[in-house]
């Protein structure tokens, strides 16, 4: 392990991508994620990689499509309004079964919204990241170190299941510095050698490869989608993740992801000190959503509280997962306002006080 050092979340993500063998990065400036581009513009030329500032978010994601289609690990990053622009390209990437990593350092919306931290893109990223029947892997790390650890996992699973992976952060995680440690590793840019499907030139050694999402025969399109959804089932079965704390005897289970989970954890710690049996579930993967983990954690719960930096989006998945077995309440701040642990604690107490 290398020395522990302080790094901004955005810069740590960028460094982690290089270490994961991400050869090409295509980006476009937008607050609060621009440090990713700035960092990679400095580092990529020194490690034999490619940094390119595209003319738009739309172009950037299509550059990813081309690069990923040729079998090379690549990444783009943006923040909420820019992700909206990328959704067309993401749909094509999913439709062509291409692996890549997309980072969304969320800010407030809709429209230009604001630039402060937000979690208002949950629905978009987990349910509607473009048109058509598809999913992307969605990871929601809660610290700078976890962001680093997530990048390699995201690339690996994207490659394994041939699908786009999203790392969903927010302005808080992107801008903050925390201690991080990188494993010692040799930096090795990816190549297409393990991707027999890649359109990287057939060298007159095989039939031509086609990267495509167009199927004019309905039955054929249905078959490709069904095959894709069979892969999704494997992802669900093997790669769903959640972190649960104090849930064994918890009567009130708080569900929160990303930076909000840190705030909620502080509130749950405070509640425990006051003798309230509170626990916390932090979904680490938002797609697949940790349905079983949540149900298990809520075994003894009387009530469930979902906390988000939005008007309530993940709460829908929490309710679906629990299937009406527990009452689910919601606490949220939005528009870039960060909920305070004290607010969450007050809500926990209010819910606990009804017994």
């Amino acid at each position: 392990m290398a020395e522990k050092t302080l790094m901004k979340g955005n810069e740590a993500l960028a460094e982690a991508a290089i270490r994961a063998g991400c050869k090409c990065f295509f980006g476009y400036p937008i607050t609060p994620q621009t440090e990713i581009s700035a960092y990679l513009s400095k580092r990529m030329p020194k490690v034999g990689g490619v940094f390119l500032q595209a003319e738009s978010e739309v172009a950037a994601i299509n550059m990813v499509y081309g690069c990923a289609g040729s079998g090379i690990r690549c990444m783009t990053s943006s923040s909420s309004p820019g992700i909206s622009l990328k959704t067309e390209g993401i749909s094509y990437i999913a439709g062509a079964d291409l692996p890549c990593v997309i980072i969304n350092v969320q800010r407030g919306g809709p429209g230009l919204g604001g630039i402060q931290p937000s979690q208002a893109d949950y629905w978009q990223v987990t349910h509607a990241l473009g048109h058509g029947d598809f999913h992307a892997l969605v990871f929601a790390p809660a610290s700078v170190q976890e962001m680093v650890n997530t990048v390699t996992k995201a690339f690996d699973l994207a490659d394994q299941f041939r699908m786009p992976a999203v790392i969903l952060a927010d302005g808080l995680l992107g801008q903050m510095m925390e201690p991080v440690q990188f494993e010692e590793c040799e930096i090795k840019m990816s190549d297409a050698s393990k991707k027999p499907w890649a359109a990287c030139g057939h060298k007159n050694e095989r039939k031509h490869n086609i990267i495509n999402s167009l199927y004019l025969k309905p039955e054929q399109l249905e078959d490709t989608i069904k095959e894709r959804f069979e892969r999704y089932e494997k992802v669900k079965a093997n790669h769903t993740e959640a972190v649960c704390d104090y849930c064994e005897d918890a009567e009130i289970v708080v569900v929160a992801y990303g930076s909000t989970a840190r705030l909620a954890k502080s509130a749950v710690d405070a509640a425990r000190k006051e003798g309230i049996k509170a626990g916390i579930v932090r979904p680490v993967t938002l797609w697949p959503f940790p349905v079983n983990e949540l149900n298990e954690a809520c075994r003894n719960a009387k009530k469930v509280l979902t906390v988000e930096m939005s008007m309530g989006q993940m709460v829908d998945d929490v309710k679906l997962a629990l299937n009406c077995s527990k009452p689910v309440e919601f606490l949220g701040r939005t528009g870039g306002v960060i909920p305070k642990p004290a607010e969450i604690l007050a809500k926990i107490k209010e819910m606990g006080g009804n017994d």
Partner: protein
Amino acid sequence: MPEFKRPHALADITTHYCPGCTHGIVHRLVAEVIDEMGIEGDAIGVCPVGCSVMAYDYFNCDMLEASHGRAPAVATGVKRANPDKFVFTYQGDGDLAAIGTAEIVHAATRGENITVIFINNTTYGMTGGQMAPTTLPGQVTQTTPYGRDTSVEGFPVRVCEMLSQLSGVALAERVTVIDPKNVNIAKKAIRKGFEFQKNKQGFSIIEVLSTCPTNWGKTPVEALDRVRNEMIPYYPLGVYKEGAVR
């Protein structure tokens, strides 16, 4: 006498193009150039959305299908990751000069080392003949039923003239394939584009004035005459820019 046969880079299948459409000729020219340069194994093509959407089936090199207008961005992604491969896009006028304007302009100005084959037939063929950015003044299309009125719909885009202003462009040439002489000129231009790419000399675009008999409501021969009599006067043939950028 040389035998006339199908180029290896052109797949041995029947295309979906209409009778009299010049896509087939241009496909063949691209394939011949790939064969002659011996680069099929290192060529990667990017097709657009439009009539040539299924060109991925027609070329024997590796192919990617892009979303509408984004082929130059997709090609950029391929080329940056694989700088030693031959990357080309094959795009129509709606794709390149309307929805994909930003992508083509920026690929060109970056001097992206790719070759763009641009089919200008003054209409959106695949969707049934709507007004394209290249539709001529007065031309009747499905969405300009009274003829393109420049006071309402503005003026056609002259792509080669526009892109030739950009420093990143090594070759901007407009050709046509309406007769054998022009077919030969077109092939030379396409070859030039790939040679510029081979020598890493910058962006090349070959605009091909093409026909769409079906949507123009003309016979194939009438369509060729229209290119000669109506299109060429508005879109003069020739080299707009030629010379290594790097």
